């Protein structure tokens, strides 16, 4: 119950103001097609430099939470999912809106998002402390395997191809090794002066997530994306609440599915929504009504994609392993303030950790309230032409990456990585394992080198790295994720890509 001790910290004027700002901004950004939660959080990191660590995290956490929920607005009113996580919501939500029940669909969407989100955050609160304490027993060999696990699981599960996912992870780890070696101060792979200081993680994150999206907008050409916004009529919020209580099954299935999927690194929100929709339909006596504007078809996916948010942060906050691209971006937000997740976070910065988690708890409620209030405005913002969106994101990406260290080198690195990623994405490579490799590579290396030194003084590297129950469990999970992914690939049942879903 330690989190209650820090609950009051969320209510300081600045913290609460940032929470509201992040929530409202996130709802609007989330409703905008093409602006994914990961990209929105990455673009916001430079704005948190001058803030206190807790304040920066409150802003980033609020944006993460509300962009996921905000995507439902355009999914319901425009039939354009704001993010891949909201694809399943489109199936029944938009039909409801077309049938003159847009407000009802939005109310159900935000209420179920809040219920799922609160469930996910409570799960996060329950799990972080014991798992964080457990991580104290990890030595260099276990931490090395943990970092490898983070890259491998994302590479195996998030990409369309296992080999390409793992390859992207290797490229990321190589990028992470560019610059001066920490142990001996030797230059490594510095083939251009811009790389003297290594690859800045924030600039790389902005480039890898924002630039491919900008070029994709260019590739769409001069298109008019003004889909018709369906006008919404009045609907009593009390009736919507009553309807929620009549659909406990959909809410439970959605929340549980989202939470379980969220805790597995690399799986992500789009899968949570679709799996929850599918499972609820199978369990529902009204399964024939799905797709015709049925309430369960909105409640299940929306509770799932917000229930995923809290648990997706468990591996990050306890073991320093970001379980998703957005968690990797949040890790970048922590590192710029000199805070390292894991036991250090909860032992030395409990105020930061708990204020951040509490703000996400409160953010779920604010998101529900503001979501209902500004849904109409958000839907209009979602109609902003792609030309304006692309130009705005490009400007923000350049200013944001420059402001990290006041260095043009970071701008160049951002652009080169982003353009390369755009082309590689066309051929089944994914940014997520690359980012994880970039962030976790240096962690893996420092523990590998430490482990090698200890091994040299003991029984050799093989014994040190490949014996001991924790090492074996971690190696087993790495191997299992690769074998599972290879098996799924051979059966042709790979995780559906964003492009495949949205096409």
């Amino acid at each position: 119950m330690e989190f209650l001790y820090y609950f009051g910290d969320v209510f300081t004027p600045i913290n609460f103001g940032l929470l509201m700002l992040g929530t409202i901004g996130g709802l609007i950004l989330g409703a905008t097609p093409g602006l994914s939660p990961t990209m929105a959080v990455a673009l916001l990191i430079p704005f948190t430099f001058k803030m206190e660590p807790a304040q920066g995290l409150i802003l980033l956490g609020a944006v993460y939470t509300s962009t996921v929920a905000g995507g439902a607005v355009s999914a319901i009113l425009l039939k354009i999912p704001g993010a891949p996580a909201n694809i399943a919501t489109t199936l029944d939500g938009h039909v409801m809106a077309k049938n003159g029940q847009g407000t009802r669909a939005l109310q159900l969407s935000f209420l179920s998002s809040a219920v799922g989100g609160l469930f996910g955050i409570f799960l996060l609160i329950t799990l972080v402390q014991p798992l964080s304490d457990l991580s104290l027993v990890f030595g260099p060999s276990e931490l090395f395997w943990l970092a490898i696990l983070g890259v491998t699981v994302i590479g195996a599960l998030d990409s369309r191809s296992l080999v390409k996912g793992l390859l992207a992870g290797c490229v990321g780890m190589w990028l992470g090794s560019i610059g001066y070696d920490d142990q001996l101060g030797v230059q490594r792979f510095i083939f251009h002066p811009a790389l003297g200081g290594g690859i800045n993680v924030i600039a790389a994150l902005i480039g890898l997530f924002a630039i491919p999206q900008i070029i994709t907008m260019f590739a769409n050409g001069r298109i008019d994306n003004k889909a018709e916004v369906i006008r919404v009529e009045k609907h009593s919020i009390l009736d919507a609440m009553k309807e929620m209580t009549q659909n406990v099954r959909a809410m439970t299935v959605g929340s549980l599915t989202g939470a379980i999927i969220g805790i597995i690194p690399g799986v992500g929100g789009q899968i949570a929504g679709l799996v929850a929709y599918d499972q609820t339909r199978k369990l529902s006596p009204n399964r024939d009504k799905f797709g015709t504007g049925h309430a369960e078809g909105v409640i299940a996916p929306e509770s799932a994609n917000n229930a995923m948010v809290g648990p997706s942060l468990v591996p990050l906050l306890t073991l320093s392993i970001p379980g998703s691209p957005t968690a990797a971006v949040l890790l970048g937000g922590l590192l710029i303030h000199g805070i390292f997740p894991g036991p250090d976070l909860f032992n030395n910065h409990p105020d930061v950790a708990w204020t951040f988690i509490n703000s996400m708890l409160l953010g779920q409620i604010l998101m529900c309230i503001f979501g209902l209030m500004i849904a109409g405005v958000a839907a209009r913002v979602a109609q902003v032409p792609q030309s304006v969106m692309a130009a705005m994101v490009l400007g923000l990406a350049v200013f944001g990456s420059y402001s990290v260290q006041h260095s043009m080198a970071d701008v160049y690195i951002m652009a080169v990585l982003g353009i390369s990623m755009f082309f590689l994405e066309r051929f089944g490579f994914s940014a997520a394992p690359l980012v994880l490799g970039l962030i976790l590579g240096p962690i893996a290396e420092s523990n590998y080198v430490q482990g090698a030194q200890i091994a040299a003084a003991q029984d050799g590297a093989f014994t040190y790295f490949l014996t001991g129950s924790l090492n074996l469990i971690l190696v087993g999970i790495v191997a299992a994720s690769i074998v599972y992914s290879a098996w799924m690939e051979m059966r042709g049942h790979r995780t559906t890509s964003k492009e495949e879903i949205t096409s």
Partner: protein
Amino acid sequence: MSEVSLPRTQHIIASGGIMLLGLWVAYISYSSEPAAAFLFPRLISSFFVVLATWTFVKACLGWSKVGGGLTGGSMMKLLPGLIVALIYVFWAAKGLGFYTATSVAFFALLTLYDPAPHTALKTWIKRILVTAGFMAVMYGLFAKLLKVYTPQEIFF
């Protein structure tokens, strides 16, 4: 036929490029001294080369899922924007100053990709106002709020 083979050719080029990068990384890792500083790069470059070679071989043999690739039409659409973006990032931002370069690039991108007709005066006024509004927000955020010192502007 060309629609089928174009993405595959592009795939071979992309995976070939990655394989060459992997070989270069492995060469540097294994040939540079002191060896202790390249212990970890040697480990990852070994996996890098194996995976990249496997990807390249699969691409050449047509065994892998190719992905959508880039059609000629898409390339032509994105090229003007990409050129503006490249000039902006690699030359104009430093050469003209961030705010001047961003204004020009923003306006150019709006003009290139805005579906509104170029012949209407209203369209141009709207583009100028949107550009001015965006730049005012950027100046307020970065120059005033975050106090980011950008390279010297050419006009002020």
